[in-house]
């Protein structure tokens, strides 16, 4: 019985580990499909409504984004005038978002649970400076 329990724990731990890695790999691959040079810098504090205050940080001339949204981790990329964000719950992608800039103080787009795809149930989102 003890062996079965140990085996079950090992299989469970392994699947959890693999699941986390899958999310990380899928998230990175989703971001990496967007390869245009950045045409904007989104660094700053954005008011995300229900998302709370969203902090985005992008190096001058860089494409990568790091930040926080209501205490959730955010990573992302700027491709042209579009921002692609992954919102992490520990090592799992909870949501992803695609936003485009409007003027200099508004990002508008959609988000969905997990990684955005053509079949995702998309919800509108707006970030304001």
């Amino acid at each position: 019985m003890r062996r079965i329990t140990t085996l079950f724990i090992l299989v469970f731990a392994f699947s959890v580990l693999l699941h986390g890695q899958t999310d990380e790999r899928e998230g990175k691959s989703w971001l990496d499909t967007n390869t245009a040079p950045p045409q904007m810098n989104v660094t700053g504090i954005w008011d995300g409504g229900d998302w709370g205050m969203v902090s985005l940080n992008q190096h001058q001339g860089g494409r990568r984004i790091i930040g926080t949204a209501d205490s959730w981790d955010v990573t992302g990329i700027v491709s042209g005038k579009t921002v692609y964000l992954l919102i992490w719950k520990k090592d799992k992608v909870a949501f992803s978002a695609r936003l485009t800039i409007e003027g200099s103080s508004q990002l508008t787009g959609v988000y969905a649970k997990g990684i955005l795809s053509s079949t995702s149930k998309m919800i509108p989102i707006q970030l304001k400076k």
Partner: protein
Amino acid sequence: MRYPAPVLMLACIIALPALCQTEPDTYPDTWQARELQACGAPDKEVHYTVDTDKVTPPVTVQPGNKALFYIFRPRHGMTSFPDKIAVDGEWKGANLPGTFFTLTLEPGLHYFCSSAKSRSLLIMTVEAGKTYYLEQQVIFKPHSPVHNLYLLRKADAKPMLAQTTPSTWKIE
């Protein structure tokens, strides 16, 4: 001393990449790497004995060339353990339920770490002359307390801040 034009042009071409250099486009990749950046190395961690100070008024004047932070912790149920804050790996202070403290930071990118039983991170680029409000939220749950560090709008922060008193601490 005069240099021929081709030599000057070659020197310009060689110097160009150095002049055009921007910041490297990298950030700490994993949560663990960001935690290390925010909270610092485990051997540098400090432990505080925290109390309230109802006598000494805290610094609340915006210095103009720096960012001012109000860091507060509202009362939530039965939690009584301290919640401490580190910025860029350096421990800055701590709160008990119902206390606050202020700190000033240079403008730029900063990594915040709030630590009470578990840790919560906040990464933000701050501007000189601006005031920011951070809420340490610790909610008691029997097995794992909920712990978050939130950046709040001024309008949301002010009523909560009004119900807190200044924090004071000693390093153990």
